[in-house]
C-alpha cells in the first residue's frame, strides 16, 4: 500500500484521535498550570507549578494513591489467579455444563459497571442478603466503615473483572498440544508437575498481556468506587481517579484536578514505557 493511500484511509481515525485525545491531553497540561474554578472558566489564571506543589503536599492525594496501590496489589493477582484456577477446572467438565458455567461467569463482565456496583451494594444494605447473613451468623450489624467499604470495593473489583482472565486462559488451554501432555504422563509426571512445567509456560505470554491490561484498568478504576464509596469523605476510600473527579466537579479546583490527571498520566507511562518500547521493536521487526 502506498503512503498516500494509507493516510487517506487512516486520516478520519487519526484526526478524531488527535482532536479528542492528543489535543485535550495538551490542554490538561496547560490547565494544570492555571488556577481555574467554574467562575473563571473562560479566563484561567496562570500560576506556574503551584497546582503541582498543592497536589504533592495534599495528604488526601497520598491517601487515595495508597488505596489505588492497594487495589492494584490485591485485585490484579486475585483476578488472574481465580481466572486461571477456574479455567483449569472448567477444562474438566463436559462441554454442555461448560457453556452454562461460562455464560454465568460472564455476567459480571458484561453488566454495566455502575449497575453491578449498585447490585453489589444492595446485598450489604440493611435490608440486603449479606447484611442479614452477617447478623444471623456473626450476630453483628454490617456497618459502613472505612475498612468495610474498602473491603467491599476490593471484593467487587475481583467479582467484576475475573471473567476476562478466565475466558482468556480457558481459550489458551484449548490451544495446548495434547501430545506434550501425553508424553509427560508416560514419563510419569504428576498433575502438579504438568501444570508447573507445561501449562504455566504455555500461557506465559497471555499472562504478561493480561497483567498489563489488568494493571491499566485497575489503575484507572472509577465507576465502582464512585458508587460504593458514594464519594463520602468519611470512608476515606477514594482512588486517585475519584479524588481527582471530586476535586474537579465538587470543589471546583479544575486546575489542581488537571495537574493531578497529568501526574497520573506520567505515572502510568513510566510503568508502561518498557512494554511500549518492546511493542515498537516488534512492530518494526514485523515489517
Amino acid at each position: 500500500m502506498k503512503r498516500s493511500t494509507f493516510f487517506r484511509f487512516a486520516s478520519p481515525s487519526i484526526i478524531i484521535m488527535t482532536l479528542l485525545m492528543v489535543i485535550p491531553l495538551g490542554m490538561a497540561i496547560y490547565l494544570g498550570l492555571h488556577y481555574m474554578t467554574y467562575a473563571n472558566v473562560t479566563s484561567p489564571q496562570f500560576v506556574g507549578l503551584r497546582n503541582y506543589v498543592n497536589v504533592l503536599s495534599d495528604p488526601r492525594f497520598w491517601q487515595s494513591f495508597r488505596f489505588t496501590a492497594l487495589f492494584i496489589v490485591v485485585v490484579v493477582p486475585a483476578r488472574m489467579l481465580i481466572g486461571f484456577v477456574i479455567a483449569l477446572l472448567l477444562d474438566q467438565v463436559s462441554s454442555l455444563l461448560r457453556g452454562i458455567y461460562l455464560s454465568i461467569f460472564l455476567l459480571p463482565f458484561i453488566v454495566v459497571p455502575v449497575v453491578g456496583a449498585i447490585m453489589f451494594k444492595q446485598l450489604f444494605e440493611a435490608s440486603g442478603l449479606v447484611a442479614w447473613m452477617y447478623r444471623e451468623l456473626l450476630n453483628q450489624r454490617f456497618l459502613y466503615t472505612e475498612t468495610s467499604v474498602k473491603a467491599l470495593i476490593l471484593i467487587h473489583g475481583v467479582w467484576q473483572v475475573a471473567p476476562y482472565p478466565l475466558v482468556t486462559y480457558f481459550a489458551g488451554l484449548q490451544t495446548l498440544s495434547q501430545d506434550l501432555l501425553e508424553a509427560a504422563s508416560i514419563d510419569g509426571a504428576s498433575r502438579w508437575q504438568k501444570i508447573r512445567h507445561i501449562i504455566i509456560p504455555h500461557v506465559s505470554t497471555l499472562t504478561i498481556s493480561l497483567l498489563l491490561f489488568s494493571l491499566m484498568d485497575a489503575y484507572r478504576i472509577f465507576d465502582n468506587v464512585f458508587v460504593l464509596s458514594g464519594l463520602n469523605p468519611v470512608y476515606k476510600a477514594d482512588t486517585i481517579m475519584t479524588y481527582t473527579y471530586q476535586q474537579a466537579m465538587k470543589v471546583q479546583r479544575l486546575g489542581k484536578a488537571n495537574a493531578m490527571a497529568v501526574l497520573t498520566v506520567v505515572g502510568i507511562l513510566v510503568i508502561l514505557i518498557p512494554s511500549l518500547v518492546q511493542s515498537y521493536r516488534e512492530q518494526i521487526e514485523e515489517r
Partner: protein
Amino acid sequence: MERIESTFGRIMIHVVLVVFAAYSMTPFFWSALQSIKTLKDANSRTPKFIFTPTLENYQELWLRSVPDNGATIAYFLIMAVVILICLLLFAEHIPVGNGLIYGGVALGFVVLLWAIPRLVDTTDFYDYFINTVIVTVGTIVVSISIGCLAGYSLARYSGHAAVVVLIGALAFRALPRLAFILPYYWIGTLTNLMDSRLLVILALVAVNQPFTIWMLRSFFMEIPNEIEESAMIDGANRLVAFVRVIVPITWPGIISTSLFTLLLAYNEFLLVKVLTQSNWTLPVAISRFTAGGAASPSVSARIPLGAAASISATIPIVLVILFFQKNLVKGLTAGAVKG
C-alpha cells in the same frame, strides 16, 4: 489435561465451580428479587423469599400514569417485540434477502421506540433509555466505519508512519480517561456544546478508537493480500475492493469489535457524567439510586427502584450478548492472544 476420575475429585470440581457461579450470580439474583417486591417487603430486615410479586417498581420507573387500556397496549407491544425477535432469529430460513430482514427489524425497533411515548405516559427514565440507544448506536456506526478504514490500512501499509500510529494508540489506550475528560468539560463549556449528544458520541469514538483499530487490524491481517489484489486487477479501486471484497470476509471480526464498542458505549459512566447535564445515559441515570446523588429518591424507595432500574438496564445487554456470545468470546480471546 486428562480428566480427574476420582468421584471425590469430580465432586470438588463442581463444588468450586458452583461456589464461583454463586459468587457471580448472587447480586443479579438478589436485585431481580428485590425489584419485584413491594416497598415494605424490599426493606424488610429479614429477607423475604416468599412474597406476592409485583411489577409496581417497574411501573413507577417507566410510567408516569397507567392508561385505562394499559393491558391491551402492553399486549400489543410485547407481541411486536416477540415478532421482531423471531424475525431476527429465523432470518436465515426466510427466503428474502437477509439485509432486507435486518433492515426491516431495525426499522421496526425504531418505530416501536418512537411510538411508545405516544401511546403511554413515560417517565424521564424512558428518555434516558432512548439517549442511551442513540449514543450507543451512533458510537458503533462512527467508530466501526472509521476504525475499519484505519485498521485495514494499518494492516496493509508497512511504512514507519503506521508503527507510529499503532504505538501512539497503544500508549493512549493505557492513559486514564480523566486526563481527556476534564479538558472535554472545558471545551464543552467554552463552545456551548455541553449536554450535546454529538460531543458525547465523538468523545466516546475517540477514547475507544485505539482499542478498535488494534482489534480490527488483527482481523484484517488474517486476510491474505492476494484477495484484494485480484479484485483490483479486475479494475476496482482500493476503496471499492475493500468495501466489496474485504469487509464481507472480515464480517465476523467486525461484529466482535462492534460488540465491544457496544459494551463500552453502553457502560460509559464518567465521560457521560462530566459531559451532560440532563441528556444522561442509563449508567448516569441509575447512579442516582445510590446515596448522595442529586435528584435521588428517598432512602427506602432507592432499594426496590434501584433494583428495578438495574435489572431494566441489564436485560437488553444480556439479550444482545446471548445472541452474539460466540463473537464476544472470540473477540475476548483474539484481543488477548494478539495483544
